[in-house]
């Protein structure tokens, strides 16, 4: 099932963005990062702290809720780390890795989640960036995901810049792009799915990028596979693909 494979590639490569001992966070409308954090806890040996917009600290539910804002992410938490807490944590630079979504992404990891067409008279009104404009400039690192990888979603010029800042990683169903968030630099292609190649990624990407360092994405490990299977959330993850989200 190609769609399942797309969703799994997104989740595994978002999980791989998490580093040992980091504090990480998933927000509203963020099922894929929620799944990535649960996968990382089960598949990797290092420790990290996972905060969710629902207010839970290190809650890794056995059964993923359909909504990443769901109080299921409070079950068993030792503390309520509420909205004011995690926003302030982020804005004082202590949320190490923040996952953010987008409709369009440019080569500098800036995002448009606002509108297609003129903002005041949009052809398509998009959901909006949530806290992205506030968080993206202050987070040490941001990992983006985009479930549709085409020339209209990965673009040279955004129709509106909803948020800009310290993007380090962009994961799509076909590739992982990376950049140094401390520098004003463009993405380079870090890795690509093993059934594609750099030329194919170039063809489906609207911004230009350097691909000299690109390698095939490391195959899913047995532990990553097992963690995905244990989540048993394929319907949920496929729901995040563009067929369903309305972000096409």
């Amino acid at each position, binding site marked *: 099932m190609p769609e399942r494979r797309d969703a799994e590639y997104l989740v595994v490569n978002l999980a791989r963005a998490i580093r040992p001992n980091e504090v990480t966070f998933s927000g*509203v*409308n963020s*099922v894929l990062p929620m799944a990535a954090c649960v996968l990382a806890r089960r598949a990797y040996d290092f420790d990290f702290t996972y905060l969710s*917009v*629902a*207010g839970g600290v290190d809650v890794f539910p056995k059964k993923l809720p*359909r*909504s*990443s*804002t*769901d*109080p*299921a992410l*409070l079950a068993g938490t030792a503390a*309520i780390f*509420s*909205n*004011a807490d995690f*926003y302030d944590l*982020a*804005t*004082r630079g202590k949320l190490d890795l923040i996952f953010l979504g987008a409709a369009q992404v440019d080569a500098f990891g*800036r995002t448009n*989640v*606002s509108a297609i067409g003129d*903002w005041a*008279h*949009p*052809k*398509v*009104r*998009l*959901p*909006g*960036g*949530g*806290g*992205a*404009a*506030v*968080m*993206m*400039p*202050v987070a040490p690192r941001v990992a983006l995901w985009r479930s549709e990888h085409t020339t209209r979603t990965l673009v040279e010029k955004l129709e*509106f*810049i*909803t*948020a*800009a*800042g310290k993007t380090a990683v962009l994961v799509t169903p076909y590739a992982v792009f990376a950049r140094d968030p401390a520098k004003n630099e463009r993405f380079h292609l870090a890795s690509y799915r093993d059934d594609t190649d750099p030329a194919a990624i170039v063809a489906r990407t609207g911004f230009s990028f350097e691909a000299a360092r690109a390698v095939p994405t490391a195959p899913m490990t047995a532990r990553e596979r097992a963690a995905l299977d244990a989540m048993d959330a394929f319907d*949920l993850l496929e*729901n*995040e693909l563009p067929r*369903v*989200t*309305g*972000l096409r």
Partner: protein
Amino acid sequence: MANKIVSLAEMARSIPDGSSIGFGGSFLHRAPFALVRELVRRGARGLEVIKSSPGYDIDLLARAHAVSRAKAGIVAIEGGLGLAPSYRRAVEDGELQLEEHSCMTIVAGMRAAAAGVPFAPVAGVFGSDLLALNHWKTVADPYGSGKETVVVPAISPDVAVIHANEADANGDARVYGSPPWDRELTRAAKRVFVTAERLVSSAQLAQQPELTLLPGFMVEAVAIVPRGAWPGSLHPDYDVDYAAVEAYLEPGDAALARHLAAAPEARVFSRA
């Protein structure tokens, strides 16, 4: 102690057309959705919705042509159900004037209103087109750090409505779990209303006052509305009723009428 209990219909009638309303909760969780439906039933017009992450609530009001302005950071139904279709149509048609925020910029505005100052600083935002779009100003640190900070104007909704797990007749309201931005909202608004799952005694609330988010002296009225957050969740009392959300999303007036008639408050309460 005052008895502030009113019916849901009385509460909806006391919110005039044209009001700016901040709703509690986030997306499908802990929001006063019964009151939103009651505003639709009374034929409200020209409302402004102020909420970082509205979804079903603003969509329903847009579907009923009850909302003409909004301050919001992200709008979606969530739960794998995509964008909010009626909200989207209303913005695209120009029926709804959006002031697009970045969630925390709304909260910073509410914090300013709560603290009684005309504006408040907020981190980040630089590099975003929202800065110019909203004519937000920046200030240099007057204490000389050299840091430039965005400041947003105070936001004081005419009305705040939150849904609590428990309330007493005085309006003291207890919330379990995470209250999203309900604390900031209720401190920023000019009038505060509570809908609550259950009526409890003041003595019960006094046993654990740290769970009382909102003291009654700040509250104008309270309506006891079991399953008042339906079809959303209320921690820890009930989960999202996704079948009902999906039924709501069916297009057409008949589907909307069916949805409103299926709501718990339509089946439980006599229509006052």
